[in-house]
């Protein structure tokens, strides 16, 4: 009995095992996509005849960081659906879904049949994303696997700015060329700038009147090029003051500007052969607070009654208050800033105003040094390039739109690529 029972049991267990293998094989053959979609979303069906509408999803979807950019793009690459190769393909396109972190999927793009890559340029640097792509038929969509999580990274070299670099290189090349030419002794012409011509007269006036010169370098720190330009002019002004044995006072709103201002004036006094006349008290820190600084400078103006006031650098709402107070004490005022909103106030209340670019050109103009003059001439080359490009662009666009001239459209397309500022 025991033998019989044992044989029956062995037969039953053999049948069970075969049945189980059979079921697994059938299941595998009948639903192949259910295995490959284990971690992907389920198909979304618009109709009931899903079997008829069934399409193979795309495969081998990979998301990778786009190289040589600012960390603002991810590239998706995949193998299109096998059904995409059929002549009578039911595929009408692909829909790209993106998940930000653990968030919900969001459709970000629809692509035509045959597409096998997509560049997502709407991502944020260092954020984490994953993707999947649905193959679309008329009535349903069939999602792929989800990609691994990835975050866009910034590279050291950004090729999106390649043309910007080339233009900078052209201008820098022009600067180097003109500096070399100037060093060889060739005289470079720079037209007169009225405000700068007046500097010597203004300092001379202060000397004659026995009153100080007040130099206000704006309210921004050393990380503003206007402050740097102001300090360059300060070098020339303080040198003249040292030569004339006049007095200068410079109240500042930033501690770093105080340090830099002291260095500049000290160097000028040393260059003029009067290091003993220099004092750290010539440059004083007041406060970082905008209107606190203005209140103090206004007080200094009415009490010290400077003969000359220089307002050069970055100014904001305080520009008119300072310029009007300087005007009320009878000072000759030379102002300059690159802030368009403040320039009207300086023009209204000051004797001379350096408008925008003139402030930056001032250092080269005043020094007459080959290196700085070459730099100024190089910048002029940049302006010529801008004028030529604008002229060509305007002509091309006008002809392309009005007379549909293809050649002009080609020029325009090239310009838009070159002057793209991604």
């Amino acid at each position, binding site marked *: 009995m025991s033998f019989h029972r044992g044989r029956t049991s062995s037969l039953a267990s053999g049948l069970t095992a075969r049945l189980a293998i059979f079921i697994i094989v059938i299941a595998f053959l009948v639903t192949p996509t259910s295995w490959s979609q284990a971690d992907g979303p389920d198909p979304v069906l618009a109709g009931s005849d899903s079997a008829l509408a069934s399409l193979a999803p795309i495969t081998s979807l990979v998301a990778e960081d786009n190289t040589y950019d600012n960390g603002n793009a991810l590239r998706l690459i995949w193998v299109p659906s096998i059904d995409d190769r059929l002549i009578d393909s039911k595929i009408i396109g692909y829909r790209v879904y993106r998940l930000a972190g653990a968030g919900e999927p969001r459709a970000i793009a629809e692509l035509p049949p045959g597409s096998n890559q997509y560049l997502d340029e709407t991502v944020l640097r260092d954020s984490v994303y994953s993707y999947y792509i649905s193959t679309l038929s008329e009535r349903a969509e069939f999602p792929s696997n989800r990609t691994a999580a990835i975050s866009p990274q910034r590279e050291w070299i950004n090729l999106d*700015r390649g043309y*910007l670099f080339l*233009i*900078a290189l052209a*201008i820098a090349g022009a600067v180097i060329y003109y500096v070399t030419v100037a060093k060889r002794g060739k005289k470079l*012409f720079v*037209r007169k*700038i009225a405000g700068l011509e007046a500097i010597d007269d203004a300092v001379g006036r202060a000397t004659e009147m026995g009153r100080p010169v007040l130099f206000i370098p704006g309210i921004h720190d*050393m*990380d*503003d*090029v206007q402050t*740097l330009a102001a300090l360059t002019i300060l070098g020339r002004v303080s040198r003249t003051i040292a030569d004339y044995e006049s007095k200068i006072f410079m109240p500042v709103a930033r501690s*770093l500007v105080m*340090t*830099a201002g002291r*260095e500049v004036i000290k160097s000028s006094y040393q260059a003029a052969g009067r290091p003993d006349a220099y004092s750290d008290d010539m440059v004083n*820190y*007041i*406060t*970082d*607070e905008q209107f*606190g*600084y203005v*209140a*103090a400078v*206004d*007080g200094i103006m*009415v009490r010290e009654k400077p003969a000359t006031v220089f307002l050069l650098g970055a100014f904001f*709402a305080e520009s008119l208050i300072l310029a009007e107070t300087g005007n009320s004490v009878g000072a000759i005022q030379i102002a300059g800033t690159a802030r*368009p909103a*403040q*320039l*009207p106030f300086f*023009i*209204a209340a000051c004797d001379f105003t350096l*408008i*925008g*670019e*003139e402030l930056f050109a001032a250092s080269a103009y005043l020094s007459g040094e080959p290196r700085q003059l070459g730099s*100024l001439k190089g910048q*002029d080359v*940049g*302006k*010529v390039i*801008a*004028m030529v*490009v*604008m*002229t060509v*662009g*305007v002509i091309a*666009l*006008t002809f392309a*739109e*009005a007379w549909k001239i293809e050649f002009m459209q080609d020029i*325009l397309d090239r*310009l838009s690529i070159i*002057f793209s*500022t991604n």
Partner: protein
Amino acid sequence: MEHFALWLSAFLTLGILSFLYKDNPWYKLSEAVFVGISAGFWFVTLFWDNLVGKFWDGWQDEPMLWVGAVLGFLMLLRLVPRIGWISRWPLAFIVGATSGLWLMNYLASNIMVQVQATIQSLLSTSYASGYDAGWGAMINSLVIVVGTFTGLVYFYFSKEHKGAFGGAARVGIFFIMITFGASFGYTVMSRMSLLIGRIDFLLGDWLGLIN
């Protein structure tokens, strides 16, 4: 306490406004209070925000913060006259880094974007955006193109402003001055809001004459 603060604010506001008459002890007091308190406030703010908030709390995770800390320390060497010259190094670093950083930014924003925006059709009656703008848009385009071009001519320093070039530069400065005129009016109106704010405080919060 609240009343005291209100009256003190009104006292100091009127003290600053008294400068409109002339310099006086009341103004000097208000000015000194304003300058002293604001300088102290900024010292405390920068100390807690930068030294503590950024460096002290983050130096273990962010080694680059040490670069700033070392440069900051070098600045303090000014206080030691014998080696004070070392403080020029961080200054040179700031000036150099600023110039380099802003070179590309200004090139992109002040040249590339400006050039792009100036390229406009002078004859077409439609913009790329698709709306039919007619003669008004054509005149607008003409003003932008001519204004930008002649403005650039004005800021070209390598040639004397004579002849046709001088004429173009003169047109350019006209454009610039008209722009400044419009900007003047606009900015004056925005500055009025500062005055309105103080009058609102005096007549409303302090005297209760207006709601």
